[in-house]
């Protein structure tokens, strides 16, 4: 039978990239994301009882990361003021070959703009959006994790989407 440590190591291998991506979207700087990523797995080791990983383990990990992040939000926000967000635009140039069409470049640009727009949402809107789209969590699950009513989650998701759409339309996105 695998020990708790072996199970967590397996989780690092299986879901590390997804969790790290989530942490990068949630935290403001790469340093914070690294911290959050490590803290999430170490928190799991500290959790009492047996881990129930039968349903959506990635969502489970992301919900823990969200809890840690919201518990330590002030610390992360302070660091953000010291080292403001600096998104990497280099990806636009990472289109694989010369035949890449203008459309692909445009799509990449749209994705980057969308990620930036998500980063600029207020925390109240950003966190539900991230959990919904990245962790594939239902409104009910998000409401449980954030401890807010389902109606509030729905309304925040709606507001978040509207703001993102507006922001994209301002920069030329036509749907």
């Amino acid at each position, binding site marked *: 039978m695998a*020990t*708790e*440590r072996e199970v*967590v*190591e397996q989780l*690092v291998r299986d879901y*590390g*990239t*997804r969790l*790290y*991506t989530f942490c*990068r*979207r949630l935290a403001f700087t790469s340093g914070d994301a*690294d911290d959050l*990523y*490590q803290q999430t*797995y*170490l928190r799991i*080791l500290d*959790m*009492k*009882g047996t881990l*129930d990983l039968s*349903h*959506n383990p990635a*969502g*489970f990990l992301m*919900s*823990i990361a969200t*809890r840690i992040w919201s518990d330590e939000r002030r610390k992360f926000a302070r660091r953000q003021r010291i080292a403001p967000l600096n998104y990497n635009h280099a990806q636009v140039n990472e289109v694989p070959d010369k035949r890449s069409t203008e459309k692909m470049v445009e799509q990449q640009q*749209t*994705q*980057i703009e*969308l*990620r930036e727009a*998500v980063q600029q949402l207020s925390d109240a809107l950003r966190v539900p*959006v*991230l959990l919904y*789209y*990245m*962790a*594939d*969590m*239902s409104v009910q*699950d998000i409401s*449980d*994790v954030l401890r807010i009513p389902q109606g509030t989650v729905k309304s925040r998701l709606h507001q978040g*989407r509207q703001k*993102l*759409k507006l922001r994209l339309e301002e920069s030329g996105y036509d*749907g």
Partner: protein
Amino acid sequence: MTDEEKFDGLLRMSLTEEEIPPPAVQAALLEQIRQQPAKRELSWWLPTVIGGLQTITMVVGVNFMFPNSWLSLLSLPTGAGLILCSVTLSAAAQVWTRKERKRYVVDEL
């Protein structure tokens, strides 16, 4: 595909574009996990039983030292009350902990 679905797809694709954890971070994390001492789980009811035994010992001690006194008479209901309280509180704490843990676990996805 509606505009809404198209936008949802774009948003999902944009957010889930993978970012690989830096190898140094990953290595440090695995090292920390391996260095964590193995947890020794204490059964939740064990402290309650030990506490209960201590209370019984005290009650027996009082009855032995001061037989048929008001103190020995009082010690019986007091001891019983304390044991009942500790059992109730331990059970309530256990139920609460389970409920809290369930919050972390995402079901039916």
